[in-house]
């Protein structure tokens, strides 16, 4: 059961990613990405991270991607229509080889490793909100604080950019 869920969710996620890359239209690409994120949430669930699974849907699929869609809609025009020109044909191999090489190499490296089955004996409530919260506000308090700083900076930055834009126009 676990294996089935893992592989199906994983496959769906890859599908979502590939489709996103191949789409010409930005809107459709965004929707495919949402699809991939929901699949990712499934992967998290398989990996005994229920809290993450929920957050993935809420934050990623829900908030971030909506932001993307908003922007795409707002800009409209060429963004909606996607790219007019395709990449020149001779460049395709050049563009494809390095990622493929990375994939092959990483794959080769991963396959070298002695396979160890995922641990099944997990403490109660592992990956649940309580557990994550304990880690987040305990050992990783500093990381938590850093997150808040990063977000604060992002807010200020976004505001500054938006503000400057209004002034310019």
């Amino acid at each position, binding site marked *: 059961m676990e294996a089935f869920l893992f592989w199906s969710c994983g496959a769906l996620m890859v599908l979502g990613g590939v489709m996103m890359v191949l789409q010409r239209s930005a809107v459709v690409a965004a929707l495919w990405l949402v699809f991939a994120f929901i699949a990712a949430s499934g992967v998290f669930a398989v990996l005994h991270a229920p809290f993450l699974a929920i957050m993935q849907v809420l934050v990623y699929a829900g908030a971030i991607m909506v932001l993307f869609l908003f922007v795409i809609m707002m800009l409209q025009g060429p963004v909606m229509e996607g790219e007019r020109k395709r990449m020149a044909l001779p460049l395709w191999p*050049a*563009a494809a080889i*390095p*990622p493929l*090489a*990375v994939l092959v*190499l*990483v794959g*080769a*490296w991963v396959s070298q490793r002695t396979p160890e089955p995922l641990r099944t004996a997990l403490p109660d409530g592992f990956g649940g909100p309580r557990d994550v919260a304990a880690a987040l506000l305990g050992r990783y308090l500093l990381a938590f604080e850093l997150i808040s700083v990063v977000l604060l900076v992002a807010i200020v930055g976004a505001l500054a950019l938006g503000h400057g834009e209004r002034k310019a126009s």
Partner: protein
Amino acid sequence: MHSPETQTVVQESLLRWIVLLPLLGAAINGLLNRRLPRAAAGAVACGAVGLSFVLSVVAFLRLAALPAGERLLADIVAPWLGYGPLRVDIGFALDPLSAVMALVVTGVGLLIHIYSLGYMSHDKGFQRFFTYLNLFIFSMMTLVLGENLLMLFVGWEGVGLCSYLLISFWFNEEANAAAGKKAFIVNRVGDFGFLIGTFLLGVTLLPHLEPGEGLFSFRVMQHHAHVLAPVATVIGLLLFVGATGKSAQIPLYIWLPDAMAGPTPVSALIHAATMVTAGVYMIARMNFVYVLAPTAMEVVTIVGAATAVLAATIATTQNDIKRVLAYSTVSQLGYMVMACGLGAFAAGIFHVMTHAFFKALLFLGSGSVIHAMSGEQDMRVMGGLAKKLPITFWTFLAGTFAIAGVFPLAGFFSKDEILWKAFSSDGGGVALWLVAFLVAGLTAFYMMRLVVLTFHGTNRASQEVRHHIHESPLSMTLPLVVLAVLSVAGGWIGWPAFLGGSNHFEHWLAPVFADGGHGAAAAAHHGGEALAHGAAAAHGAADHAGDHGHVALERGLAAASLAWGLLGLSLGYLVYSRRTKVADTMRGLAGGWPYRILLNKYYVDEAYDGAIIRPGFRFSRTVLWKGVDAGVIDGLLVNGSALVVAVIGSLLRLLQNGLVRFYAWSFTVGVAVFVVYLSLKG
């Protein structure tokens, strides 16, 4: 070796005030400047120098009260340079030599200060002038009273600075400013040699010093003089380079005639009576080095003699009254330097003193003339001033006779002594005597020419100038009279033995010039031996006392030089007062070339300009600045390497094409390469 501490030296705090009072005066005048009324400024300046003179007399009397072998007063004020074994103090010392100089400097200085009250009374830079003048006295006294060679150097540079300031006093004229700068720079060239000589001296002495001994202190140097023997020649020559700058000897005499751009009292004080004699003083002060260096002495003698001739010949053709006197000064300085070169330091200093009297007199007299002529300095438009300026004329005449060596005026004694030394010393001889003799005649000739052109005949000036001619005020004539008296009688203290005198002057200086060690330093240990030795040396190496044949010879030579001087005077009178055609004929001699060469001062200035100054500037501008700096270093190396960087950069720039996707692609390539590397590494 015994350190000089064991010896008694009288601490005399008076000395510092002799030096500092003029500085105080300069400070007051300099800081208050125009806020001080003229009368007060003049009073401050003259008061400071006057007090300084009085103190000098007091110090002199105290010095004279000491036994002959121990005449040394010292005043160490504070340590100056102290680092490791190097110890130099701010200190002053008074010995018979510096006592003479101090009296001359403050005495003549005071007279010239008083004279300036009248001469500068209408100048708007009155306070500034007296500031500089006081500053000069301060520097000169530091030079004279300095306890060590570096203190002497402080004064040495200080008087150079004051000379610069005073020559370019009327700086509105570009020429005056240029003359001042020239004086300072030429002096600096001399100082370069002086400084190197000082280094060599210090380096040689340093390992031999005992604890607490100040390097460069004259006493210490004299005490250890024997260790200097191997390098004495080099030191002597290097120091002499400094003296050629300050005392206007070949090849650095060129600044002195130009220095006449300054106000006339300045010419009298600095460029005749005091500062220019500093070189002579320095050589005399360093006599213990020079006696170890016969070669250096020879050079000094030759340079002195050559300068005396060169300047005297030029002086016969100049038309500017002050320039004649300037070249005359150069010539007389040559005399003094020559005397020092012959080992006759006392004779040199004697001439320094008498020269100070009569040359100051002559310059002040010429100042009085210029004052009367509304600033005119060209003798060709003067004439007939004798009646209108009687005091000036008579005092000037006294000065002229003194410099011409007419018995019994001051110049006779000092000049005759030098002539005798030129004849009789080891370094001298008949040839040298003839040269000096020739110069004496020339001197008489050109001085008489000056007197005749200025005071005789009819006045050749314009109506307006002639209308304003008047005798100078008392403040100017009084110093003239005093100096005239000194010019007449000032030589009597050196009345020589062969004329029945006892030459007090030479005896007074004898301990300073005692051979092979300071009289005082030696006295403590060698007792009377050194004294006897010193006394013997004082009479000159060749002059074995009591030799009757020599006395007769001396008398004969003196008579000859007196006659020769009178002949020169008469010739000058005849040529320029009556038969002016003779002068024209002389001018036209040999196609006029000799005259033109003399008139243009042998073209030395032009030669320096063409051979050194212009090429130097051209080299600096075209080769060094535009060539090396802007061309090679900045152009080739700096901007060249910038160019290389730019080429590499533009190659790299092909990669940096601004395509974000290309960057991402390269990034991926990099990751792939890195993974390969990791896997290969295992």
